[in-house]
């Protein structure tokens, strides 16, 4: 973990759906400005952890603290600090890019959001398509607009749930650049992915979750990608995606 102040902390976090325990007494600490890649096989609990941090589901037991606020009791304060990007666009296809951003700006009570919307549309390369309907966008364009939506309220934490799903090579490269830019801008990033090589390349810390518990937690530079892949396979019994 970095020496920066702590931003996110889970203490003995457990999540169960009836008899199925997805996360088991998870203790994770994430410092401000870190870029954490969450890896693990399907069903290991990565996305559940992200949904818990986003306040979209309640823990069965344990504590979650984000910026000193506790979930679920202070969920509204936590949600204001978090932006979420998922493999789905989380956008309305029958609205234009600008209308989507204006709508979310109203929900976040942003005053005079038009300048911020223009800045973000330029940042994600969609300024000229701002008045086009989202349903006319390619998957890559939708994902870039989704990032603009997540950045709209200038959150401290950005959560990315398998953001590369369905993207071609060019769009994936653009997303890499946007993620690295977001980290440079001071955002704390937590990203779930199956792409171990990409995670080792762009993240600052690798956290492998296996069967609801932390199996590996180290800086991305701790192991070369090939050794990390071997370690992942040994730990999970699964082959990592390239």
């Amino acid at each position: 973990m970095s020496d920066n102040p702590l931003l996110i902390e889970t203490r003995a976090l457990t999540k169960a759906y009836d008899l199925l325990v997805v996360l088991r007494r998870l203790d994770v600490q994430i410092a401000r400005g870190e870029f954490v890649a969450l890896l693990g096989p399907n069903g290991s609990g990565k996305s559940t952890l992200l949904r818990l941090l986003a306040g979209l589901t309640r823990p069965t037991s344990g504590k979650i603290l984000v910026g000193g606020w506790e979930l679920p009791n202070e969920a509204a304060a936590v949600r204001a600090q978090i932006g979420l990007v998922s493999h789905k666009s989380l956008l309305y296809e029958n609205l234009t890019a600008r209308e989507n951003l204006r709508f979310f700006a109203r929900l976040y009570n942003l005053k005079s959001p038009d300048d911020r919307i223009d800045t973000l549309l330029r940042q994600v390369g969609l300024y000229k398509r701002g008045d086009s309907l989202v349903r006319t966008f390619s998957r890559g364009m939708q994902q870039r607009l989704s990032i603009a939506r997540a950045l709209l309220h200038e959150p401290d934490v950005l959560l990315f749930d398998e953001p590369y799903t369905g993207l071609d090579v060019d769009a994936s490269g653009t997303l890499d650049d946007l993620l690295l830019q977001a980290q440079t801008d001071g955002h704390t990033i937590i990203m779930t992915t199956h792409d171990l090589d990409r995670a080792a390349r762009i993240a600052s810390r690798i956290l492998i979750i296996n069967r609801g518990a932390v199996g590996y937690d180290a800086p991305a530079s701790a192991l070369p990608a090939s050794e990390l892949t071997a370690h992942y396979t040994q730990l999970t019994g699964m082959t990592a995606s390239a």
Partner: protein
Amino acid sequence: MNTSFWQAALSITRKDLRAELRSRELVNTMGLFALLSVLVFSFALELDRVARQEAVSGVLWVTVVFASILGLNRSMAMEREQGSLDALLMAPISRTAIFAGKLIGNFLFTLIVGLVLLPLMAMLYNMPLVQPWIVVVLLLGIIGFATVGTLLATMTVQTRARESLLPIVMLPLALPVLLAAVNASTAILNNAPQDDWIAWPQILVVADVVYLTLCFLLFEYVIES
């Protein structure tokens, strides 16, 4: 950053109306279904005037209820398809504001269909359906259906069998509203004395208040479970 309840709710309603104005998906589906239903009933029930007076309010309400179910399913499915419901839930707004926003939209879409149905059925069935008390009963009935329906559609949209599940769970729960609305409309169309039927709209008001209170209380639990 806190957004007021009404600012959030009305933003959600405005978003639904804007998206609908562009796609006309909901109103077209609901309107076409309603038109076909009243035409089928009109041809199927070749009734004399007395029988028509008895049957027409039933036709009206059955059509409104099933058209509203079509709209409710679609309205909530729109929030699920691209995961935008998660984006709404992530916003620092009250969960009940989300419910209120969706409810107002669903109410307006069903009301538009109901208001188009009245003159259409008046013409087809030769009955005085366009009159103030019928409109009042229509408003009260649709508030009840939209309230129960919005809550239940939030639950059923997360299941695979959502298209068939919503009417199965909604109709028994909305039965008091349907019963009061049909009885009130039938009495009004039969020119019964107001004292004989005024209790039905009053029951509708009570049912609406009870449903609104319960659904607002339950929505947060439903959406997070």
